[in-house]
Each structure stands twice: as C-alpha cells, then as structure tokens.
C-alpha cells in the first residue's frame, strides 16, 4: 500500500491510496484532474505527465528510452518529468508527491 499525493494543475491536493497499478491508474480510478490515461498506459498518449517532487526523484527513478523520447517533446517537461503510466506503484513510494502537468 502506498499513499500518493497528486497536486492538480489548479493547485488542489488529492491523496490516493493504492497497492498496485501505476501512478496513472491510481489517478484515473480516483478521478484526479489532468490525468486521463487515454492509451491505457502503453506510453502513447502522454496524458499522464507528472513532475515528481524533488525529494523523490531518485527513488522514483529515471524515464526509460521510449518514455524519454515522448517526454522530450512534451510541453512543460523538466528534469522531474515522468509519464505516470510508466511508474509502477510500490510500497517504497509511500508518501510520494507528484504535480500533475495537465494540458
């Protein structure tokens, strides 16, 4: 089980508890604004873009090659960017905060 805090584009905090899936699926199941997950999590739509809180970047880890190639061309990308669907939820992410980029 991990508690994840999403900060939506309009500044609302949404806290979600999840024990599986990804940062995208947990957000979609809890209707977090700005995360749509249109492609279902195969890294094709970028509607799950988040910025990982600075303190968590090393624990969350870097984007893979396919994800990095997508992110390279996304608006609002920075060194904390990840696609939520490519970040599996695992117990060590308990307490993580991410900012939803949205479109």
């Amino acid at each position, binding site marked *: 089980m991990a508690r994840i805090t999403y900060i939506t584009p309009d500044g609302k905090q949404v806290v979600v508890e999840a024990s599986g899936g990804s940062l995208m699926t947990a957000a979609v199941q809890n209707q977090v604004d700005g995360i749509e997950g249109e492609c279902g999590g195969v890294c094709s739509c970028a509607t799950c873009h988040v910025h990982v809180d600075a303190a968590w970047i090393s624990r969350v880890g870097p984007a893979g090659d396919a994800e990095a190639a997508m992110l390279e*061309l996304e608006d609002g990308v920075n060194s904390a960017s990840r696609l939520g669907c490519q970040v599996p939820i695992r117990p060590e992410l308990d307490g993580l905060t991410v900012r939803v980029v949205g479109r």
Partner: protein
Amino acid sequence: MKTERDPFIQKRQESGVEYMRAEGQEMPLVLRLQDVRKICKDWKTFSNDDPFMIVPHSEANVRSVRQYPIETDPPDHTDYRALVEPFFRRPNDANYQVSMQHLVDEVLAAAATPDCVDAVSDLALPLQSRSLARLLNVDDSEAKLWISWGTHVFKEGDGISKGAELSSYIREKFEAAEGSDADDFFSVLNRADFQSRKLTLEEKHGFANMAFAGGRDTLIHTISSIIAYFAAHSESLEFLREDHARIITATEEFVRYVSPLTAIVRTCPHGAKVLDAVIAPGGRVGLCWPSANRDETAFTQHDEVVLDRSLNPHVGFGFGIHRCLGAAQARLIIRSLLESLCNQIEAIKLIEAIPEVEQESSFERKVGYKRLLVSFIPRVPRALRPGLAA
C-alpha cells in the same frame, strides 16, 4: 523485406524519407518515429493552415469547405478545438461506455450468424455510423442514412465525387437546428461563440465535415483488419480471454499495426529541411504514420501483431496539438468490440478478402478491406459445452 502494410522499410532504414508524387510535386514523406513527432510539435514551420491539402492529394474537387479544427494553426486552432472538445470527451463517461458496449454487443450479435457476412458493410460500417450518432448526441435512426453512404463519404472506389450529398445533408441539419436549445452537435455549434462571435455556416459545415469524414474509413479499415486478423489467428481470442488487460494493449496494437491513415500533410510557408529533404517555401511534407509505427528502433517485432505489447509509443492517432480528437471514441469502440468478440465468438472463418490498396507513384499499401466475407462461429456458453459441469 517489404510487406503489404509496410512498403517503407528500406527507405526508413536508409534515409528516413520516401518521395511520392502529389499535386505536381515530389513530396517527401517522413518515415521515422521521432522525426514525425518533431514535425508535429513544430507547427510554425509545418503548418496545417492550407485548406483541402491535409491529405496528399487535394480534396478541393470533393468538398467545398475548409475542415475544422484540423486545417487551422494556433492561436485559432486552440479556440476551434476547444469548441468541440466536450463532444469528443463524451466517451470518457462511464454511462456512455456502458451504452457503447450494449451497442457493439447488439451489432456483433446481428452480424454474427453462421452464414456468410461482409465484415465491412455488416459490421464495421454500422458500428462506425451508429457510434458516431452517440458521439454527436443525435438519434440512432440518423445513422441509417450515414450507413448508406458506404465506407468513403467523399469518393466512390472509382474516384467519383459524392461529397455533394454530405454537404447538403450537413447544411440542412444546421438549418433545422436553428434556434434549438437541444444538446446535439448541430444545435450546440449553432449556439457556440468563437472569439466573441457566432460561427459562420462555412465553419460549422467544416466541423461537421471532419466529424463525418475524419473517423470513417480509418475506423472501418481498423475494424475489418481486426476481424481478418482473428480469422487468420484463431488462438488469439482465447489469448485475450486469458487476461482482461490484453483488451487495452491489443487495442493500441491494432491501431499501431493497421495505421489506416497513410499520411497527413503539412505545408511549409517558409520552406524547411528535414533530414536530406529540402522543402521550398510553400512546399509540402507528409507524416507517414504507418512507417513511424514500424520504426524498428522503437518497436521490437515491429511488423508483427503483439497483442500484449505493454510499451507501445505509437503515433496512430497523431501527436501534438492536432492529435486525434476522435481517439477516445475510436479506442472505446475497438475495446468494446474486442470485449464482444471474446464473449460471443469462438472463431472466425475467412471466406473471401478483397483488400483496399492505395497506389501511389512510389509505393502501394494495403489499408484495409473493400469486402471481407467471413462466417462467425458463436461461442458455446460454458454450461452447454460437453464434458463441463454447469
């Protein structure tokens, strides 16, 4: 090795560009995934503001209006797109999803008799048209006429224009909806405000034109290709049944593999250079979705259907500001169809396939089927299968 759906492999690997004859020019087609994406992002250099020219061969002789929002650039594009976005987001609603599953179940059940049926006219076309009626929030009965238009709304297979029929239908609909406070596509666009004014009839017509034409042959070719795939791979339905998550991955994989839209075109008002291709000011360049979707540097087993491909960064629905507005609808239809096939169908027998092949100066490519005659073998309910207790 060239395949019927990927005639671009050699050029993709050698130079990243293929040339095709279009509107009197040798137009470059960009073939690699990241090059296609980069062009999609750079709308100042690669513009959509060129009416009738969004596809390689001008549509000026088959339609009379600019298509919205696709044939526009920001900042106008942003505002035009926002006007219709609420319609295209309807498929994200849970009730809409349930109702779509019922519709697909019903259309498949009607088509799935042991007799010979045409998966194009008896399944793909009614699915496309009846689901569009839901998207546009008009009565299901409207779809009867749309079905009668066939796969292509602008041209018959022999190239004869029939765009005039669609045009007069659309204009009549906007007129009939004048003053209405209903929530259908036509009434809502009549009331819409664009940059502090009402839309002109030309603009509304251009929106409707895109809604009717944009997702028509693309969706129909994808559906018929899915049926052909299951007819050739009888074990694959069982593979999907084993893990429900595969409905999602298979949907994306069919969109990647089929890539029914060969190319969408950008115009370069100031000229551009892409790899070794030099585009003169006012010249055009094509984005070749099926080739980008088989880029071997991004996709393993790039020319095979991998139904559980979990990493699938395809651009079947485009990329960037013009990414497909109908993607949520298309995905929902395909996911619902896979769900229905898994529940209702044991196997599909191919009787006859007549492919639809696009012929260009430098390549030909299979995009789907003109006719796909099959028979569906229904799934025997578990309780009735010999040797299985109820």
